[in-house]
């Protein structure tokens, strides 16, 4: 499998088809005398920023700390619970993951404005 072309940067949806984000990085497990194995994918702005420039990643981590949303981040999804097709489907509920923190917070604001639903 070509990890960069078939997995990295692909869209990730949960079991109900809700957009969770994109595959921001891929975690490989390397053991002696065995080929590397993909153990998980990661979804996180700080991991993504780190891919652009390490310093941007540190800034983003700092921002997550400041906004008090760093708990459970980056979100690591085990390889066993994902299916890869045109997009990556994770067998979990988006709302229960740490990736939904910002969406939840913004939704609480948006929902207060009339005609938001």
């Amino acid at each position, binding site marked *: 499998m070509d990890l*960069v072309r078939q997995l*990295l*940067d*692909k*869209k*990730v949806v949960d079991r109900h088809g*809700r*957009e*969770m*984000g*994109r595959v*921001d990085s891929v975690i490989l497990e390397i053991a002696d005398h065995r080929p590397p194995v993909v153990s998980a994918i990661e979804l996180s*702005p700080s991991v*993504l920023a780190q*891919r*652009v420039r390490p310093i941007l990643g540190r800034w983003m981590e700092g921002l997550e700390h400041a906004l008090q949303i760093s708990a459970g981040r980056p979100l690591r999804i085990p390889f066993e619970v994902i299916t890869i097709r*045109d997009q990556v489907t994770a067998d979990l509920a988006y709302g229960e993951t740490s990736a939904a923190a*910002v*969406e939840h917070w*913004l*939704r609480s*604001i*948006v*929902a207060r*404005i009339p*005609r*938001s*639903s």
Partner: protein
Amino acid sequence: MSAIVDLVLGVVTSIGGFVEAGSISTAAQAGSEFGFQLLWAIAIATAMLAMLAEMSGRLAAVGKCSMAAAVRERFGIQFQFVPLTAELAIDLLLLAAEIGGVAIAIRLLTGLSFQWWVVPVGGAVWLVLWLCGFGLIEYGLGLLGIVTLSFVVSAWHLGPMVSDLGAGLLPSLPLHHHLRYGFLTISIVGATVSPYLLNFYSSGTVEEKMTEEELWVNRTTAYLGMSFGGVVSMGVLVTSALVLGPRHILVDSYAQAALMFVPAFGHWSVGLFAAALGIGCFGASVEIALNAGYLLSQVFGWSWGANKPRRDAARFTAAFSVVVAASTAVALMGFDPLRLTTIAVALTVVIMPVVVLPFLVLMNDERYVGDHKSGPVGNGVLAAITILGAVFALVVVPLEILGG
């Protein structure tokens, strides 16, 4: 039948949505300073835009993803970071310029300083985005934009010589002010081939759920709609060349540009110019703000769509809201909208190669376009546009300093 309706609506909205701050200001300046001599630049820029729009629509109809999403998947964030940042900066500046354009249009009608109108206009842009679905935004504003056809009516009324128009459509070198001529040529290309238009076009194709069988609608809309839109831009240039040029009026503000309607429309000239400028810029403002939301959501994989309830796409909603607020703040600082447009257009030209290059790869990748890959002609023209874009990107900054 519905495909025909889609087609007509698509063409009409392309015409109505074509003219905005960038195209009006560059075409008016070109006309007043060089007569019909830069008509060819509008023709070539329009052909480039039509071709790229058709491709981004094809990618969206077949691959079910927008340009920004496809670039993130195919090229990764390291490649996309620079064009993404630049595109957001362009969106911000252009949106500020468009909001300023609407505010100036209202000033022409009311006489009250344009800064009084900036916040109400920004608020109106946001309100349209908050309340309307994609169809209403696209078709409603596009239909209102038909008022911009008054540029064509005006040009027609002035009765330019057909042979002069024909001569203007052939590229030629000027007898004077070569640097200014070069600068305006590149500005016309930058104002026409805006990256926001391309991503907006492909996102719209996804929003409308266009299928592979409707590709002919996409093709016809792109080529026919954009060509007619280009004719409106040419109407601006021709009117400016025949009215402002002989009187040596240089377009350094929109109030001066408004004078171009006097011979054709008399008493109605200011009102009609204000309506064309105001509606053109307002339509573009809504599209640019929406595109900023699309862009960020698609790159980062958030839920997006103008047809979704706003709370179900909270990050998308927040993204376009923040961009509207930021641009309104920039416009409020009192920067001259014409100057903002010039900077945004120059920045567009600088990033043009990285905007066009991905087309060359994506339009030949069957994972995105299936059997509808580009042929040798399409690829050849794209390669030529990429090289041309790279040359433009190299010379735009020196030209801006020397001829801007």
